């Protein structure tokens, strides 16, 4: 039941009859996330990701990616599928500086085969301020995008970040269920297998769910 007061109700605690109701329109309101991230800062992350072809509804999207985040600033790479006739999973990179408009790039020159795994990685290059997103394609790492964060002054010290590997969807779309996180973490000089020796946070939003199946953070997902 939706309650429709004609003015602002100031004492809500007396409105015991009010109950939860859902919106009647498609609202791209929130993200449903399932994945893992490091509890400490590192300088890069890599994982192989299965490409699937989930159902995606109007105004929605679904994605599987790896990325590095510091606060609400992030660089991530993976695949995303948006709604629309003929839509298919596409390689993408997204960068957002907190409060800013996200910049998203698509790379249709790297077509994806549904049912195949592709490795993605995001890492600090060692060149001051420069982070890089890559895909492993045709036998070698291909650079998708370098992001120089020098212009973001308050972000200038960003040389390490939380590292993520996740499947994500918006609203009623299906979870990709595509992650196969035999992943690696970059410490600035070498890539090391992401195992339970690294303090890791596992997080999901219902109705999505994921569990870690082994010490290598090979995670399994469930979703609608």
């Amino acid at each position, binding site marked *: 039941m*939706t*309650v*429709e*007061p*004609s*003015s*602002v*109700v100031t004492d*809500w*605690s007396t*409105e*015991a009859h*009010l*109950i*939860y*109701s*859902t*919106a*009647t*329109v*498609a*609202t*791209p*309101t*929130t*993200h*449903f*996330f399932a*994945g893992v*991230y490091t509890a400490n800062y590192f300088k890069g992350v890599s994982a192989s990701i299965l490409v699937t072809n989930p159902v995606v509804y109007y*105004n929605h*999207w679904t*994605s599987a*990616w790896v*990325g590095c*985040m510091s606060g*609400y600033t*992030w660089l*991530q790479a993976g695949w*995303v599928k*948006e709604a629309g006739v003929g839509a298919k999973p596409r390689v*993408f990179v*997204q960068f*957002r500086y*907190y*409060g800013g*408009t*996200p910049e*998203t790039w698509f790379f249709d020159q790297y077509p994806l085969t549904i049912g195949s795994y592709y490795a993605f990685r995001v890492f600090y290059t060692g060149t001051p301020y420069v982070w890089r997103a890559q895909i492993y394609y045709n036998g070698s790492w291909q650079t998708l995008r370098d992001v120089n964060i020098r212009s973001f002054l308050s972000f200038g010290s960003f040389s390490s970040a939380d590292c*993520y590997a*996740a499947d*994500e969807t918006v609203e009623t779309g299906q979870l990709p269920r595509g992650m196969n996180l035999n992943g690696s973490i970059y410490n600035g000089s070498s890539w090391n297998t992401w195992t339970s020796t690294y303090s890791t946070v*596992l*997080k*999901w*939003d*219902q109705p999505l*769910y994921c569990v870690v199946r082994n010490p290598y953070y090979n995670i399994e997902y469930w979703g609608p």
Partner: protein
Amino acid sequence: MSSKNFAKQTILLGLFPLFIVLLSSCTSLPLEASMTSCPLQLAYGNVREDLGLVLTAKIYRAEGRIGEKIKCDVSLRNIKGRIERLSFTDGEYFVLTLFDQNGKKVWSTMPDLLIGGPSRDMVLESGDTIERSYLIPLEQVGEFQLNVSTTAKVPCPAGSDGYYFTGLSVNLTIRVR
């Protein structure tokens, strides 16, 4: 007509203009609008009794012209302290979205394809409120539905690391001339 009925009719006829004036002033709309169509709502509230969370949205005008902006105040209040730890998507506490009559999104505070990461935790203690103000741009003529929602998620019961979406959302109608 008896004198008793005459007195009744006189009172009713006398009250009718007063009622119209009151109706007009309460809705802040032109008198014609109040008389010829359903009054537009200026504020909505919605509550999750089980969580003790209340979402309200208030617009200062429900009608405007192209090029104008309508202010909208949004708040999320913890009224009962049943839950303190909330989780929000990428720093966005609220999302305002304007839909046309066909359900097509014409404007939103949430950027398209904002992938980001998991929601982030924060504490909202009992009695505390998160408040934000927004300006809604009016760019097309017509009637629109303003959907105001919170990205708030709450932790699943103890022993689980999962979260679930509160689903708190309200709708208001805006007309653009």
